């Protein structure tokens, strides 16, 4: 199925307007953006609908967009049976990003959501085991946010290397 047909089908089934972004010159991948409150429903539909059958969640990730005050969450989907890809997005408010967890739809999402929670600070409702995965549990901040400031030290361990001449003086 063509990407735009998939988007039309989702729009018709969900009963909401879906934002559609595609370049007229065909640069990059086109994608659809569903409202945050329809995120879980859209994913269930993508997995279960017989014309879609997206059984494989290739990747789930996020992008910080401070100028739009949102954090985008992107799911790259693929159907092994029908052999079509699709890019589905949603947006969470940047000040208090909360989304429904889709780990019940694709178990693979469980760790991807932990990663997004860790690096971008999005809270996933209904996740079984939402805790940091890459950074230590007590690490301040979310590194993939655009305004992230790296702390100078972690429990007294400096996060930057001393300059060469300072090292020589020791």
């Amino acid at each position, binding site marked *: 199925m063509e990407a735009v047909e998939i988007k039309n089908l989702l729009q018709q089934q969900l009963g909401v307007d879906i934002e559609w972004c595609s*370049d007229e010159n065909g*640069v*990059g*991948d086109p*994608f659809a953006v569903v409202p945050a409150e329809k995120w879980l429903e859209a994913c269930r539909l993508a997995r279960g609908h017989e014309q879609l059958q997206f*059984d*494989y*969640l*290739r*990747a789930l*990730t996020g*992008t910080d967009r401070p100028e739009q005050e949102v954090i985008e969450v*992107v799911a*790259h989907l693929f159907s*092994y049976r029908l*052999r079509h*890809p699709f*890019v589905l997005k949603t947006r969470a408010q940047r000040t208090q990003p909360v989304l429904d967890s889709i780990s019940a739809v*694709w*178990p*693979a999402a*469980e*760790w991807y959501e932990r990663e997004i929670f860790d*690096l971008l600070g999005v809270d996933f409702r209904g996740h079984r085991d939402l805790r*940091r*995965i*890459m*950074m*230590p549990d007590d690490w301040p901040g979310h*590194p*993939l946010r655009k305004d*992230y400031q790296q702390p100078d030290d972690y429990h007294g361990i400096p996060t930057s290397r001393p300059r060469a001449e300072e090292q020589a003086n020791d």
Partner: protein
Amino acid sequence: MTELVRIAENRQELVLNMGPHHPSTHGVLRFLVHTDGEVMSRAVPEVGYLHRGLEKMAESVNWAGYMPFTDRVNYLEAMFTNQVYAMAVERLLGVEVPERAEFLRVIACELNRLANHFITLGCITMDLGAFTPFVYLLRERETINDLIESLCGNRVTHNYMRIGGVAHDVDDDWLRHLEKFLDHFEPLIEEFRALIVGNEILVRRMAPVAVICAEDAVAWGLVGPNLRASGVDWDVRRDLPYSAYPQVEFSVPLGRDGQGDAQSIAGDCYQRFLVRVEEVRQSCRILRQCLQKLPAGDIKAKVPKLIKPPAAECYAAVEGARGEIGCYVVSDGGPKPYRVKWRTSSFSAMSIIEHISPGLMIADLVAVIATLDVIAPETDR
């Protein structure tokens, strides 16, 4: 008798730390193992020890300058991560890669796949108690490393590909060396099969241990040999063709019930092992065809010195040695990537371990880690 019943009623779990430093984890990786005796009720992987922030680093270097960083995503698959990043940026730029460069990329990647599978197969046997095959395979890998070193100057972090092509051309001498290596190596696959693949002790450790059914493999996002061992007929090289792969012939080995051993089941550790052995043979086949078909011509397309892709995003995928490696790049039209995301096969393979661990023995966990071929730095990035 009453004693036994009493013990059975008050089952107590022991939580055991396996790692972060453990010979079978090949890298820094920890499992919290809940056991009752030798049987696990749960093994929870704890990762992140090798997180280097490669995705964040992308935001502070320019598009071409990120290439050496891609080598570090996985130290055993540098060619593939090079290629998938180059492919993603080329798609945004609309650059056509010259034919010769595509073939050189396939040659480099298949050599990399061989080198990687030698480590994997060697480590599987080593973790299960047979040290000798590892040493033999490492010797062969040295030859490949030498070949790659004379190709691009680096043995592990290759940095061979460029946006628009590859960095260095090959000469006839190099191609002759490659052919000589294949002549020498192909008979060794048979030797390896005869010596170790059917070895009863090794087979009993793997078949039918830790079976992952096809539905689970797809749902948890397993890719590559792990997915094919469960019987899912899927290979990115064949099914979503890219580079010069449409011009070479190869077959895609699958896991099957009873293949190699009557007790083995599709999706168990032994099928994951067998699929990789067969993939080594297929890689040699691809390399031989590339040697015959390598066209003359440019090795790099014309790309501007300062790369500024139009504001768009794209996801590119290649079939790495562990399966699909995905690279999702977002451009805002500037000289630096706005966002780069790596979809790596070890990450999804690691996440299924908690799901399949209940009921396995502690020793089986070693077989699971080895045959799923998880690499800690690739998980953590």
